């Protein structure tokens, strides 16, 4: 009988590099930056780490293959190391590896680190990638904005919004994330923007303008996880616990079967419902205090509010415009600035999200600290990644909370 991951593993320490166009830093530098912070946070020595997972996506653009770039950069003590890649869910996948190892009892302290060095390609936007030797022969050479932009047209058609109405809600999403990022020194983009600027921004992929798109940045983030018993032995008083860690992968339905309508992500609701069940959350709208979702594009964040069960189907534009997901709304979303302002160094993103939830749960988020529903700080935070494109993807949902 499965018992789930809830409260079997806790976070001993986390680290996150400054995100941005880190021209001066390579992936090794970024990993060290995040790792040193996490080591200090956990109050452990590197030789206490017993296993490690590296998440990196565009290995050909930065680290190269395998987990060795991590083991070498961090001078890990010849422990078992593993490299994982699961599209934009890569960072969360690394965390999942480390968490499952601890939960299995295979080790007591494990490391998950994600890194991506995107700014060595020589051009803006994400690098090109192959989709597979057969797929490259028939699929369009689509870009990420182009693949996600299509959600907007299909959504507007299905739910009877004019594109102008929908774009206003999308603009609000970008404005909100930029506003949040002004309070975050680690964010890449820390400027305020206006709804008008978003609406008038340079077209990237209809109907997305450049300010509907997340930044392209370099960065790394990491987590050191351990068992609750070990955390006590390490002297950690208040600890953040993994309440749920779920993944749902496409099986081809969206790409090949007519049942998917193109207005949402099919996998997110599946991963979310599993995560809520695993965490014992019965009413996410009333229990989740903050969320970090995969806002690679404004329209993605919008449809995710419905896919996560936080807005009614077809109502997300209203909830967004009503401020429900703003800093002072019912469920603040992207309180750290999100992908929009951190950019999306793919391997790092999932762990960067967990880092913000971790800080918020521990009351260490500085000037952007939330008070939570109780007024005593947030109780549950959720992270979500959508790896791939709406047509085929890996959705990950994690829920973190304090260990009771």
């Amino acid at each position: 009988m499965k018992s789930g991951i809830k409260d079997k593993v806790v976070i001993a320490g986390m680290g996150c590099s400054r995100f941005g166009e880190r021209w001066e830093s390579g992936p090794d530098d970024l990993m060290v930056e995040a790792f040193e912070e996490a080591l200090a946070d956990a109050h452990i020595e590197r030789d206490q780490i017993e296993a490690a997972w590296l998440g990196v996506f565009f290995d050909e653009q930065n680290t190269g293959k395998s987990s060795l770039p991590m083991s070498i950069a961090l001078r890990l003590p010849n422990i078992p190391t593993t490299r994982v890649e699961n599209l934009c869910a890569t960072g969360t996948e690394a965390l999942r590896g480390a968490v499952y190892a601890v939960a299995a009892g295979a080790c007591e302290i494990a490391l998950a680190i994600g890194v991506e060095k995107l700014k060595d390609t020589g051009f803006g936007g994400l690098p090109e990638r192959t989709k597979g030797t057969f797929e490259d022969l028939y699929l369009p050479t689509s870009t990420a904005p182009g693949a996600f932009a299509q959600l907007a047209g299909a959504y507007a058609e299905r739910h009877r919004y004019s594109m102008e109405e929908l774009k206003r809600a999308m603009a609000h999403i970008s404005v909100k994330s930029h506003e949040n990022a002004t309070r975050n020194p680690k964010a890449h983009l820390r400027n305020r923007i206006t709804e008008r600027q978003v609406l008038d921004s340079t077209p990237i992929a209809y109907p997305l303008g450049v300010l509907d798109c997340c930044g392209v940045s370099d960065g790394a983030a990491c987590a050191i996880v351990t068992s609750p018993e070990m955390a006590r032995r390490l002297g950690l008083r208040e600890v953040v616990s993994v309440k749920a860690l779920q993944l749902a992968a496409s099986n081809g339905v969206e790409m090949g079967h007519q049942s998917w309508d193109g207005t949402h992500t099919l996998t997110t609701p599946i991963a979310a419902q599993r995560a809520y069940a695993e965490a014992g959350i019965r009413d996410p709208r009333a229990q989740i205090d903050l969320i970090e979702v995969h806002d690679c594009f404004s329209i993605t964040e919008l449809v995710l509010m419905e896919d996560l069960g936080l807005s009614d189907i077809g109502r997300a534009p209203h909830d967004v415009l009503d401020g429900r997901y703003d800093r002072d709304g019912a469920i603040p979303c992207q309180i750290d600035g999100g992908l929009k302002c951190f950019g999306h160094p793919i391997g790092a993103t999932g762990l960067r999200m967990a880092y913000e939830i971790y800080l918020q749960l521990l009351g260490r988020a500085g000037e952007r600290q939330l008070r939570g529903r109780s007024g005593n700080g947030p109780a549950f935070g959720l992270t979500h990644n959508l790896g791939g494109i709406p047509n085929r993807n890996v959705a990950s949902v994690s829920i973190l909370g304090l260990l009771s």
Partner: protein
Amino acid sequence: MTQLGCINGYGVHVPRLRLAREVIATAMAWASPPVRGPARGSRAMANWDEDALTMAVEAARNCRAASADVSTPQSLVFCSTTAPFVDRDDAVILAGALDLPSSVETLNLSASLRAATNGLVNGLRRPGSTTLVVASDLRLTRPGSSQELTYGDAAAAMLLGPPCRQSLATVLVAVGSNSDFVDHYRMSGADFDYALEERWIRDEFLMKVIPTTVAQVLRSAGVGVEAVRHFVVPASAATAKRLAQACGLAAARRDDRVLMHCGDAGTALPLLMLADALEAAVPGELILVLGVGQGVDAILLQAEPGVQGAAKVLTRALESGRDEPSYVRYLSHRKLLDVDFGMRAERDQRTAHSVAFRKRESLTAFKGGRCERCGTVQFPLARVCVNPGCRATDTQVPHRLADSRGRVKSFTEDWQAYAARPPYVYGNVEFSEGGNLLMEFTDVETGGLKVNDSVRFVYRIKDEDRARGFRRYFWKATVA
């Protein structure tokens, strides 16, 4: 007299884009002032993703759709002087895109603009078998040349076979003769034709050979010049008029639409002009078709009742163009201008040929799978059914999607992706029989596509591997 076959169907493809000759003249008059003269009408302009092969596929599909005869031809003849491959059988690719069986006889005719009438004469001499003759040319022209104004890109197809109820024309005479008269030439590997003086060509060759040939043809058919009501001669309007007079055919109708609205489409020109004649002819009228190129082919036909009900596909194609306002974009599409499309255009397009061969039914014939258990159509055909309620293993049979219709489920106009004609337009298409595919759109205007639009599918260039000199094709959606 030898028994000859009939023309039982025809089809054309005139690319949707039309470049007004005035646009060319305006751009190039500084360099060659005489081009100001004949700047009337438009030339058909292949989109960036069209070539002689893709145009041939469309003309052949148009022919098979327009003619009631959907049986498999025994022979497929591809005629072109600009086939994309020199050593890889273009006709075999054409057969694959048309989903003809591997037993179909394929033949490539090239080497002169007489290739298409060569194909007709040869096919007609085998009256017992059905032959699909497809002619297509996309000839590059040097900027500022008179060919740039007069040439056009297009394809045409003729279905030949024994007499049947829908026969369009019965062939009375089909003859050919050769002569190494060099009116223009293009050496192997050269980009452009080298054209000689028109007056010399007219006076020394056309005016001498054609009247003699025509007289012989009419004599052998036992008909007088007055019986010929349609004179198809692939030459400029002025030259055609002179030739008609010299042949005693001044009263016969001559095409004036194809050159004006499409241009000289090389090997396809006589077939396009024959299509024009078939659309004008009434049953019983005689049509005389000439093909010229290091010799002359002559075919005398008599229109049959089938012409009355036949779809006027040439008229429709000529009337459904869209003006290309940019001469610079035309130059770029023909690779006569090396535009900087940015680093994304540097993407390596290496083909895993073992994959392409393994998946040739998917890629060339556009066949997906249909699950025999639940009926779900899907692309590509897979071992396990995609229907979440089925997922049966090894239950799929090939299902051709090329001739299906689809609905735009979602789309984008992508300004970030590399596109030879930005923006790069792609989206989810739902097939009318079910199934979904993320596809590229072609021949759509920016801002012109909408969710729920109905689409059909066309075989086009997908991309080019510049490092290895290889061109790849796949099917795209276009507004139906």
